[in-house]
Structures are given as C-alpha cells and as structure tokens.
C-alpha cells in the first residue's frame, strides 16, 4: 500500500514536470534590428530601442534617464567627494569627466554604473540620494554610454581549440563513442571563469601529443578493434554511503556501485570487486548476517557472492567472475540484497555517512560495502561485430574488393564533414584516401584503412580547432558577417558543447541558417534537444561553481552526516533547477526566486522535507518553513561551496552574492589576519572559542581597511547564517539563538534568507545583466570588457519584453552583432610573414 502511494507521487511529479514543459511555448520575441553586413561600424544596436517594458519588482528600470547636467550635479554631490582628482579613491576620478561626451571615459563610467546598479555606491555611511535618483542617474549614464558606442564591439574570439568537454562530446557525436577526455588530454585553463575561452586554450607539445595519441586510440576503440587487455578501476568515493537504494539498480537492493563500462571488444572479461575493510583488514559490516552481493550486467544477474565466505583480517580479496561479454556499453552493477536491512529507527543509529566508523561498535548496525571494482580484459578478445559505434561509422560494407575504395570514400567523407563542420572538397577526399590506402596497404584489411582514416580525421587541425576565415579583400578593422557554417559551429558549441549535427550543417551549407526565422527555429530545436544538457552542465557548472563540489570536504568530526551521496544530490539538484529554467523557458529571475526544487530522499532528509522516499529526484514546492530554500541562495550546492570545511563563511557567501547576483567583483583584501581563537587549552586540546560566526566577523569590521569591503559582504552572509557549513537549516549556534538581521549597502534592512532574497529581488535587473554577461562570455568564448556592455544591455532590454525568459536571452545573444559578426584583425601580420620566410629557409627534416 505504502509503495503504491509512493509510485503515485512519483507519477504525479513526472506529470507535472512534463506538463510544465509542454505548455511553455512562448512567442518569438521581436527581432532585433539586424546589423548591416560587411560595412564598417554600421550596426547601431543601441540607438533605437523600444520603450522600457514594465518589470516585476523593479523600481530601478522604470526610472527616467537623467540629463547630463543633472548627472553632473548628482555626481558632484555624491561621488566626487571621494572620487576626485586629488583623492583618487579606488583610482577613479569623476570631477573632470565630461558627461556630455562619455566615449573617452567609457571604461570608468561603466564601473560607476555597475556599482550604482548593484546598490554598492555610494558606500554605506556616505550620504546617498533616494533610490529613484540613483536609478535615474544609472539610466542616464547608460543611455549616454550606449549612444557613444557607435559600433558594437566585435572582437573575433580567434582560433578556438576544442577543450576536454567539447572534444569528448565531438567524439560522441561523430563516432557514437563515450570517452573520458581526462584520460587523453591535459587540463584546460579557465579564463574569465570559463574553460571554453579561446584565448585561454593554449597549445603545447603535450597537447599535440594528447590529441595524436587520442586519435590513435579512439579510432581503434570506435571500430571495436582495441583487443589488447586493459584494466579499468572504479572506486567508491571515501565518503560514499551505501545504506540506501542506488538509482538504476533493482529495487530490493542496497548500496553498491553502478558502472557504465565500455567493453572495447568481444571477449572474456574478469570482474573483481573489493569490499570496504578497516586498517587491519577487518571486513566492514561483517556482523551483519546472511549478506549477499549480486553482480548484474545490463540489469541481469550474472553472479552472486556470499559475504560470510569472505576472509577476515586480510585485504587479500579474490572475489572474481570471468564472463563472456559482447563489445559496447553495458551497465555493470555490484550491489547487496537488502533482505538484511532493518529499518533504522532504533535509538542507536549511527551517522548517515556509513563508513565513518571503521570499527564495529556494539549496538549499531553496519552493513558491508563495495569499495572498488576492477574490470580486466578482453581476454581472447575478438574484433567487435556489432556495436553502436560500428553501425554509426560503417555506413556501407564492401562486398568484392573492388568496391572497397568507393565505400571507404563514402565513410570517410561523411565523418570528415561532421568533424570539420563543413562540406568536403576534393582535396580533403584525396588526403583521406591517402590515409586509407596507407592503412589498407597490401597486407592490411579494409578496416585497417578506415581506422587510419579516422585517425587522420581526428588528428586534423580542422577538427581540433574551430577557425573563422575572413572573406578576402577586407580592410583592417572592417566588420563582416561570419558565414553560415561558422555560425552553425558557434551555435552548436554554445548550446551543446559539440559539433553541429547534420541538420545544422545542411542548413548552413545552403546558406539558410542565418535567415532569422530558421535561426530562431534552430535555436529552439537545440534548446529542446537533450544535448542542451551540456549548457547546464558546463555553463551552470562553472558559473555556479558546481565543479568545485567534488573538492568540498566538510570536516567529518563536525559534519559526520555529510557524505558523497549528499554532495552528488546537491549537484543534481542545482543542475535540475537550472535545467528547469532552461527547458520550461522560465524567467531567469526565477533562479533567484523559484518556489520549487528537486530532491531525492537523501536531500529531502537534509532539507527537512518529509515523505520523500527513494533515490529518484522529484519536484517539490518550497513553501511555509521551506521558503528559505527558494532560489539559488537556498541551494545546498551554493551554501556548501561558499563555506569552509569546519564553519560557515559569511564572507564567501557575501562575495558569492556580490559576484553572481550583483555582478561586482570585490577588491582584494589585504593580508588576512587570523580570526580570534580562544587560546585556552584543556586536556591538551584547544578550547574552541564559543562565540558565533557573526561575533567573530565583527573583527573584520573594526579595522577601517577591512570594513570598507566587509560591510558590503558580511551582512549578506549573516542573513544566511541560518544554514550551516553543509547547508543544513539551524536556529542556534553554540546554544545561542542566531541573529539573522542584516542590511544591504543601500540601507535596506532585512533578516534571514527570505529577507535577503526579497531584498535582492529589487536588484533582479542587475542579476539578469550579470547572468547575460556570463552567458555572453560562454557563448562567444572570449572575455568581455566595458566596450561590450552596450550590446549586453541591449540583449537584456529586449529580453525584458518576455520578462527575461531564458530563450529570449539565448536568442538575444545568438542574434547579437558579437555572435554573428567579426571585425577583421590584421594584427600580427608582419610577424607571421617574417616567420614564414624563416621557415622556407629551414631545410625539410629527413624522414626515417
């Protein structure tokens, strides 16, 4: 009965989710005025804009633009006291700036606008005009800046090397093969917060070697010809708890590992598993009787182990199975039957992190756990005959030998077209067939030739780099529209982090993609496609720093319940939350406010949400006591990554809000003095200073140097003190009630997370601006600066008409001049030519 009702709840949640997806099909926003093609400095995005739409909770945007004379008066009164030519506070002077001609001072004025918009200027303690005046000032300055920016900033992102993620995705798109790029390529540096910024993706011999060696291995793997045995190890994270059901494993099982493994060839494989053992080899959970581990391949049981037969006091485990497996992806599960599991409602319940104690403690129930799995093979491996990759690659199979060449040409041309993201020319085919012939040779086979051909394609600079060639006969500095194929690549790498698919290449090669209607339809198709999960993973993952979650390791003594299951749940929640905004095409302001989230049992337990059972995530409404969890500020992922391992950090949380909501990067602090410790010792241990984090942070503010910034950040963090360092709700610290009252720089007072959220809602236009800026960087793969701000504001203004729907931001970006145009950059020409001359003089190396 109980199970039935749970299923009903799940079904209901699913229905809601899908219903939500279906009903949201907003009208396409009006097309922005398109820039003229190949003419210098023509696009005037900022000049003619429709009247400002009315916005939800946004007094700022409704303000009329202030005249230059009035701006001067306001700035003289409120800004110049500090930012004058004599004091030069923060290196900014506004007394000498001509507000009727802002172009020469655009950079400093953009800084001013940003801080005013964020409510951070004038600073607390200084005199400030009312909100309407400030908004009107910002509006006026922005209008002048937008007018002054006659031509949009068109900096070509430049030659763009595929990063690890893009490389792996491109391989999947091309060959139907999932690879772990980290196993082939060195890490990419991130620039301006993202690892897809072209300028940061440098090259080195190690990288070239990585690409070359990957090309060789992947071409073998894809054809199922990697028959040499290899070992793969899968480790359970040290803080992974195995007391619940793992999603994807059968009901009625407990814990264990679920692995998606690629079996490179048909053959026998050895499966070995290792239980968790203590320091002296004692089997963890050995006192739990009648434990059985079962092994499953693709959901089917292929073996079982009786845990009581495992040796004690040694880690010399030989729990092995040798099985014949067909090549391809298979899920392999190692899990325990949960017939021994007793509902954990007795008083002696240990921590949620199930392997925290390494020794059995009487009165507590522990269960055995899987620590590591190895898959070795293939033994007697044979070339695979039937895998998804082979089907994808081998578009034809030659019968008699004379058909081979024609078939090889078909296969390699098709692959090269997608790899190079353009139609294939005769010259390309010639090179590809040279590879084929070299591999085929006299002694080799047809597939030897195809393998070499694929290796050649994957090594090709045109695969490894995205490049955009300017049309011929351009003047230096001339603006031009990128061609449709280049546009297809930009779109695909932005929304999918991979190469364009057939449909995009087809449209682009017919020159239809840049047609506004076609482009609009394609963007909507791409967002709806499952591949847009990559935008969530890579954009949100970096913007919200979800990629830092794996390294967040709260001190176990203080947070014994924290485990990897919770860490993963935080990640999934944040990704699903962002995904819902994207897929349901909601207003991005919902990222701050939405009254729903996604939880599974582990996360619900952490958040104190009752009646959620099982490993599956489902949508829940956040109301009543859960209101504090609304929006990003209440999400575990954000709260955890902005904490120290042993305590909260109001500073980091405040900084997070400043950077991600208000779009302001706080300046560097001076050398950090240590926080006060009690200094007392008892039994050889330091006595912790039992005062609240808030009280400790007061020290930051007693020093004037610290105070100037910490008065901006700390209060924001104080309001979030009702969440501890792992994002669990609390009302007390050291037995004393928490003081959650806080104040923004603009003087608005509030208390607690909900108060903070509401206070920040007034800054939602600034949040949208900031999100757009980040998305702009990510979409273009280049850093932005003050010169880009007029374009970014234009996108945001357009998007306001749909109340900032995600699709309107994405469409705004992909139709912006920056996304569709480049400016011809002739720089570096001389150096290149000099070098070319030098190279001709160098004799060609001797071949061996």
């Amino acid at each position, binding site marked *: 009965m109980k199970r039935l009702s749970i299923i009903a709840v799940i079904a209901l949640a699913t229905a809601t989710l899908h219903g939500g997806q279906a009903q949201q099909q907003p009208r396409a926003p009006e097309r922005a005025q398109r820039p003229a093609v190949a003419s210098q400095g023509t696009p005037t995005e900022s000049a003619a804009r429709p009247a400002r739409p009315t916005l939800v909770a946004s007094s700022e945007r409704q303000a009329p633009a202030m005249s230059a004379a009035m701006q001067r008066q306001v700035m003289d009164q409120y800004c110049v006291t500090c930012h004058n030519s004599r004091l030069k506070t923060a290196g900014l002077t506004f007394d000498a700036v001509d507000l009727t001609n802002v172009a020469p001072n655009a950079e400093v004025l953009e800084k001013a606008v940003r801080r005013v918009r964020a409510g951070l200027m004038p600073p607390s303690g200084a005199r400030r005009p009312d909100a309407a005046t400030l908004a009107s000032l910002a509006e006026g300055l922005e209008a002048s800046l937008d007018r002054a920016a006659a031509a949009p900033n068109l900096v070509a992102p430049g030659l763009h090397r595929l990063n690890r993620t893009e490389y792996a995705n491109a391989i999947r798109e091309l060959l139907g093969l999932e690879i772990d790029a980290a196993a082939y390529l*060195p890490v990419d540096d991130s620039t301006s917060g993202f690892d897809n910024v072209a300028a940061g993706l440098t090259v080195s011999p190690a990288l070239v070697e990585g690409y070359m060696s990957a090309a060789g291995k992947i071409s073998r793997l894809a054809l199922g010809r990697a028959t040499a045995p290899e*070992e793969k190890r899968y480790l359970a994270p040290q803080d992974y708890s195995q007391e619940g059901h793992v999603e994807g494993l059968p009901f009625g099982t407990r814990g264990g590992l679920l692995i998606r493994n690629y079996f490179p060839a048909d053959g026998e494989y050895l499966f070995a598993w290792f239980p968790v053992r203590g320091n002296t080899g004692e089997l963890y959970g050995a006192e739990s009787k009648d434990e059985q581990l079962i092994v499953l391949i693709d959901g089917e049981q292929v073996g079982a182990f009786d845990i009581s037969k495992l040796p004690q006091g040694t880690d010399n485990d030989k729990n092995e199975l040798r099985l014949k497996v067909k090549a391809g992806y298979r899920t392999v599960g190692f899990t325990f039957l949960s017939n021994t599991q007793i509902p954990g409602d007795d008083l002696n319940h240990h921590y949620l992190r199930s392997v925290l104690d390494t020794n059995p403690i009487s009165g507590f129930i522990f269960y055995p756990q899987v620590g590591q799995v190895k898959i070795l093979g293939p033994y007697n491996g044979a070339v695979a005959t039937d895998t998804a990759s082979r089907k994808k690659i081998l578009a034809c199979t030659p019968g008699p030998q004379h058909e081979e060449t024609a078939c090889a040409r078909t296969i390699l041309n098709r692959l090269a077209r997608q790899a190079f993201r353009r139609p294939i020319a005769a010259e390309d085919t010639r*090179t590809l067939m040279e590879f084929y012939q070299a591999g085929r040779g006299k002694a080799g086979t047809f597939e030897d030739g195809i393998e070499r051909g694929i290796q050649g394609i994957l090594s090709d600079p045109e695969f490894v780099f995205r490049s955009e060639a300017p049309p011929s006969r351009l003047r230096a500095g001339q603006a031009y529209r990128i061609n449709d194929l280049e546009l297809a690549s930009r779109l695909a790498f932005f929304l999918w982090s991979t190469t364009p698919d057939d449909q995009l290449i087809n449209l682009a090669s017919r020159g239809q993609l840049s047609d506004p209607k076609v482009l609009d339809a394609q963007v909507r198709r791409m967002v709806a496609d499952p591949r847009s999960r990559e935008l969530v993973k890579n954009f949100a993952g970096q913007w919200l720093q979800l990629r830092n979650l794996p390294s967040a390791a709260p001190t176990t003594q203080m947070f014994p319940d924290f485990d990897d299951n919770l860490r993963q749940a935080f990640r999934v929640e944040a990704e699903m939350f962002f995904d819902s905004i994207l897929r349901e095409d909601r207003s991005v302001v919902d990222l701050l406010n939405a009254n729903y989230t996604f939880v599974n049992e582990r996360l619900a337990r952490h958040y104190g949400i009752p009646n959620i059972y099982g490993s599956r995530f489902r949508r829940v409404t956040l109301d009543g006591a859960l209101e504090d969890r609304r929006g990003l500020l209440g999400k575990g992922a954000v709260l955890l990554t902005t904490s120290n391992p042993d305590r909260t950090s109001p500073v980091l949380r405040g900084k997070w809000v400043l950077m991600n909501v208000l779009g302001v990067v706080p300046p560097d602090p001076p050398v950090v003095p240590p926080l006060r410790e009690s200094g007392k010792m008892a039994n050889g241990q330091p006595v912790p200073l039992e005062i609240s984090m808030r009280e400790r942070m007061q020290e930051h503010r007693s020093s004037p140097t610290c105070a100037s910034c910490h008065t901006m950040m700390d209060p924001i963090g104080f309001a979030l003190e009702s969440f501890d360092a792992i994002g669990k709700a609390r009302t007390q610290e050291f037995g004393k009630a928490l003081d959650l009252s806080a104040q923004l720089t603009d003087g608005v007072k509030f208390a607690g997370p909900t108060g903070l959220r509401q206070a920040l809602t007034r800054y939602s236009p600034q949040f949208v601006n900031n999100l757009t800026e980040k998305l702009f960087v990510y979409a273009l793969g280049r850093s932005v600066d003050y010169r880009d701000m007029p374009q970014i504001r234009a996108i945001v203004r357009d998007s306001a008409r749909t109340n900032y729907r995600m699709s309107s931001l994405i469409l705004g970006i992909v139709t912006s001049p920056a996304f569709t145009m480049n400016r011809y950059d002739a720089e570096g020409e001389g150096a290149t030519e000099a070098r070319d001359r030098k190279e001709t003089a160098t004799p060609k190396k001797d071949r061996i």
Partner: protein
Amino acid sequence: MYLTKTHLPRRTFLRGAGVTLALPFLDSMVPALSALGTSPANPKTRLVTIFAPHGWAPTYWADGDPSVAPTAGRNTGLGFIHQPLAPWQDKMTIVSGLDATSSMPPPGSSGGDHSRASAVFTGTSPKKTSGADIHGGVSIDQIVAQKYGQDTLLPSIQLAIEDPGANTGICGWGYSCAYSNSVSWAAPNRPLPHEINPQLVFERLYGDGSTPEERQARRVASDSILDAVTNKITRLRSRLPGSDRTRLNDYLDSVREMERRLQVAAKVSGESPNIEVPFGVPESFDEHIKLHFDLQALAFQGDITRVSSLMVARDVSLRSYPESGVQTANHPSSHHGEDPKRREDWATINQYHMKCFAHFVKKLAETADGDGTLLDHTLVLWGSNMGNANQHSHVGAGYLLVGGASGRHQPKKLTVRDAGPTSNVLLTAMQLMGVEKDSIGDSTNAVAV
C-alpha cells in the same frame, strides 16, 4: 666515440617468463677502454623540481627548531619534518629563511597569496590578469630543458597529483588559473600542463601500445599523420587573420617538436620496457605519488628525459592525508592558528610528504647510473613559496637541494640560513646544473652550498 654493434644498445631489457626487467645501464654498454667523459653513456645531470604549497610548519624544521641548532660548521641533525631524509643528509642542503619576494603581492596591492604558485621556480612575480595576457617568467626546469632537452626523447615532463578541473574556483584575486595550475613555464606566457594520470605519463615515455613492436608501428603511423597535419596548418594559415596565425604557428612548433621526438624515439626503437603499464589514477595519495616518483626514476634511468617537475598539491588543496595520521585537509591544516596541537598536525603532514619523497630519493640512490647512482647525477629542488602559511607569509620560506648533481653539489653544511630571495636558490640550482647564468627573477646572488 660511437657504440658499435658489439655493444648493447642504450636501453636493453631482459625478457623472461612473462616478466621483463629493465636493465638500463649495464657496464657492458660502455664501450671498452673508452673514457666515461666521452662515451655516449656518460651520465648526464638530471633536474627535478618539486612544489608543495603552504611551506613547512614553523619550528619543526631548520627554521628555528632548537633540536637543529648548528654546531661548528655543520648542523648535527634534522628537524622533525625532514627526519625521513636522514639517510641522505650528507647529500642535501636545507636553505631556510628565504623570502619568496616574487610570490608577494605587487607593491600597492595585497591578497592573492594562493594565486602565485608559478613564481616558485621562475622567481618572477606573475602579472595580475585573468585574461590571456599571462606573464609568469620562465621556470628553471625549462631553462635547463631548453639547454639539455634536445638530446633526449622528451625535453622535460610535468607531473601533478591534483586535477585542477575539480577545483577551479580558487584562482581568484584577479589571477589566471594558469599561475596555480603549473609551476613549469616554458615561456612567460606558456605554462606547461602537469599530467595527473600515471598511465598517460608512461605512454608519454614509451608510446602507446602493449608491446614494443606495436608501439614502434604506431610511431611510424603517427609520423605520416604529422606530415599531413603540417600541410593542413600551412593551408589554414594562408586564409586566417594574423592573430590566429600566431596560434597556428605555436601549434606547428608543437607538431615539429613531436616529430622530433618521433625521430629520437625511432633511434631508440624497440627497447621500451615491457613493464606492466600502470592503469589510471590511483585512489590513494601514497600510491599515486610513489608511481609518479617511480616513473620519473624510470625516465631518468632510460635517459628518456633529464628534467621533471612535480606538483605535490595545488594551493588551497583540500586533500587530506590519512596515511599521515592527520585527518585535517592540507590547506586548513596550514592555517593552524598558532595553536601548538594544530601546528604539530601540520608538521606531521609535512613530514608525511617527506616520507613519500624519501621513497624517491631512496630509489635514485639505489639505481646505478654510470660511475655512480642516479642520486649522484641528479639535483632535486623541493620548494614552496610560503614560510608560515598561517598568515600566508612569504617570508621565511624553505627549499631543499638533494643529490650530487654530478659532483657539483657537495654540501658543506646541512643548513644554510637567511639566503635572501628564493630566486637565489633558483640561481644556485641552475649553476649546479651547469647553466651559465648570473641571475634569474629577482635573484641577488647564488647561495653558497
């Protein structure tokens, strides 16, 4: 003098029943009657640079620990942290009281103390930028590699334990992540990526393939593919704008470099060891770093490279080292708050790192190489850019010099104190490596060791 057919090639391996042992340097490889100095088997000096962030716990090493008070001319013992290196104390110099000036915030600014690791072996203050215009100086391993690297298959190798991909948020303060991701800089704007996966390191050393023959065949295939790549780059270059060409030229340089390696590899073909290739990234730090150390020793043994660089951890590492007995993570431990117990924990972690390092030193000392051991012909420089990490202090930092550097490093004292900026040690190391330079970064003079 050349090796003749009667001599074993430079790298020879005994193949037995399923087991293959590497015998990289047999006496028989040196042609009879040849002087070592002119033989191709003449031992070359190797350089290892090792970076560990956050310095050493104050008072637990030669920076002021009373147990290491110097006696006449020579210290009597080692501090707690360096105890694991006791067997080789005659071959090492501890330089204490260094000022990591190049890691200090530039004049007029502050903060970013964890964002300037690149300075540790460049002695150059990294340019504050999060954009593409990075500038971090050239590190000494690369200066050495540029001088001697051409003779070996790989000019240098870069290894690390922690994957920056998992920890991208730390390189803030307006500094590019490049500065904290790499301590090996080939040019002021070219940080070299450090490899985490021992399996990939092995493949870098010996090529891809399960047998030497297979590896050789694949090298030949790669060579022809590189030809096609070179042609394609030339074609692309003609139609791309100037700024892109610069990057393509970098790529072409890298391709050329790879071609060169293939040529060298072809010369030493067929003799790569048939040892078991390590698979994947080990779970435990202990296992991981020892594998990395073993691979470096193996690379030196086979003269595949003479220069390596290793990052034990990254700044602000949250890794903990349960093998040390301390559970607190690296970075929090370094902020010991001057609490005696916590400082001891931090020292224990430092000592644990030295235990791992001792595994390497032992291996070098036990591996015969020409007329001595690898340790005799190697110089290891272990450095950090902090003194007391509790305050992120860049004053009072320590570096270690270990190994004979082919007779150039004959320590007169165990400890050298107050040697000025850290760049002075870098200068010393370069000179011990036979690089004739009289300054690097902000060095004032070499340290007398």
